[in-house]
Structures are given as C-alpha cells and as structure tokens.
C-alpha cells in the first residue's frame, strides 16, 4: 500500500458538513439577492438612491452573511477540488495558504465595501 495513505487529515467531516450547511444558506440568500438586485431593481438608478437603499442595517447584515458564506463555501469548494488532485504534501500546503490569503483579501475588501457604503454621506 502506498505510503501517502498515512498522511492523514481529519478535517474532511467538517469541510463536508459545512459545505452543505453553507449551501443551504446560500441557496436562500442567493435567490433573494438575485431576485431583488438583478431582476427587480433593473436599469440605471441614480447613485444616491442606490446607496440610500444600501445603508439599511438589514441589508448590511444580509450582505455580510452572503459574503462570509459564499467565500467560505466557494473557497472550501476549491480546497476540496485541490484535495482531489494535488497529492504532494508541500504543494497542498502551498495551495492552502494561497486559498487562505485570497480568502482573507476578499473578505477584507468585501467587508470594507460594506462598511464604506454604510458610512458614505449622501
């Protein structure tokens, strides 16, 4: 039996389970998000109107949840794909770091955006 088998990682259950939990949350948010922002609010609106709408706390909460779950779900998904195809331990580690960094960066930018929008003076 190949030696590689012994490099275990026991995080599979957590990844698997939360991928599903986030999937269900995403399903709900995403449908809402699309229906609301892409179908209903169509056309070119004045900046002021849009930002005003975006400053409601309810909207911010939703946006933030979406950001977190989608990032987690998406990057976790990428990591699961990587686990399938990258067999060398060092490469896996490297890839994982990249994912973490990208995740952190996106989280930062995304959070910043939300905060900035809500603190904009109209």
């Amino acid at each position: 039996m190949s030696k590689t088998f012994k490099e275990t990682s026991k995080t599979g259950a957590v990844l698997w389970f939360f991928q599903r939990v986030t999937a269900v949350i995403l399903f709900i948010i995403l449908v809402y998000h699309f229906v609301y922002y892409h179908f209903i609010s169509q056309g070119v609106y004045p900046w002021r109107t849009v930002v005003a709408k975006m400053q409601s706390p309810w909207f911010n909460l939703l946006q933030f949840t979406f950001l977190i779950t989608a990032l987690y779900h998406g990057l976790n998904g990428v990591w699961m794909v990587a686990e399938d195809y990258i067999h060398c331990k060092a490469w896996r580690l490297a890839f994982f770091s990249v994912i973490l960094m990208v995740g952190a960066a996106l989280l930062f930018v995304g959070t910043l955006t939300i905060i900035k929008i809500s603190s904009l003076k109209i």
Partner: protein
Amino acid sequence: MAKVKLNVKVLRYNPDTDKKPYWKTYELETEDDVTILDVLNEIHWNIDGTLAYRRSCRSAICGSCAMKVNGRNVLACETGLHQFNSHKLKIEPLPGFKIIKDLVVDLDEFFAKLERILPYLILKKPTPDKEFLQSPQDFDKIQEAAMCILCGSCTSSCPSLWANEDYLGPAALLKAYRFIFDSRDDGTDERLDIINDRNGIWRCHTIFNCMEACPKDIKITEYLSRLKVKATENSI
C-alpha cells in the same frame, strides 16, 4: 439460436514483450446466445492461446471476470451478446488499475485497501454460548452490502480513484459500512477514524459511476452517504 459473426477488439498487453497495450482484433463466428466470457473462451481455446483473463465460477458470484466491455464495467460471464446492439465488441481491462497482462489487472492494492478498514467483526463484549441476537431489521441494513463479490468494478470506475490512486474506493468503503452498521460490531470508532481521512470517504463526490458499474446492483452511494453522516456525527 442463430450463428453470428463477431468482430472483437481486445486490449492486449504482455509485460515481457510489450511497452504499451495495443488493440488486437479477432473475427469469429458464434451462436447468438453466448456470453462475453464464452467469446473470450472461444478465442483463448481455439484461436489464440496467449490471451489471458480471469474467470472461475462463470455464474456471476466469484467476481473474477470483471472487465470493461463496450465502454462499461461488467462481469463477462453474465453479460450476453444480446445485451449489445451490435456484433462489434470492444473488450479492455478494468480502468484505473494496473495491467498485469491482457485483461488481468493488479488487485493487490484493491485488497490492501480492503484490509485497511479492518474488515472483521470487532468485539468488546464476551461472545455468547450460541448466536448473538440480531433483529431482521438490523440484518436488512447490512444484507445488501454483504452481497459484494469484490469484483472491483465499482472502485475501478470511480473518477475519484482515477485522480487519486490512494483513494480507498467504494468497495472498501462499502465493506466499512457493512461492519459499522452491523449491530454486533463494537469497532465503529476505530473504523470511522480510518475512513474519515483525506483518502477515505471524503473523496467520494457522489458520482454514481460505482452504482452504475456494480453487477450486484448494490446501492453503494446510498451506503456511503450514510457513512458520511455517521462520520460527521462522530466528529462534530
């Protein structure tokens, strides 16, 4: 029962002389009610004795004769010509395994993986004088999984295995299911610890090729799902 002309393409490989497998075509005439195994026998016995393949029971119970015929994994012995529309056959060894010779593949890893999941009853209670009691409902949970003939069709058809040869594979995981869900067994924790692994159950992405390939129609994916839930319950 009429005679038919067959055109049979077989993937040949002899480790002593060939660098790479190659296709060889045989033309022959047989009855139309024969099985793929009969066709191979006919070739081996009367046309070309160098062809090698595994077979024994020829009644779909020993699991020797799994191979890929016209694009899917089957047991050669239970697959009749009539299951195909044409009289052209394309026969190759199971994908994903190493070829020893012609249609004979290396099963050492396959069996090693099976051994890995501790495929025997683990008892932490004393054995009774007679039998352990087990309800018919509990028996039903494992009956289908116990039908597995270890033919390797499922594991060799799984894209996850093609990408990662260390993946335990559906056959071994099904065996794990068979013991973990056996009401008599006390080894759940040990076994879950083994399959809850990078190369274990989490490499299954419910691709269902295994279920398509299984000659015994075992609902493999369903059992693997139950294992995943069990493993999750145990570690979260």
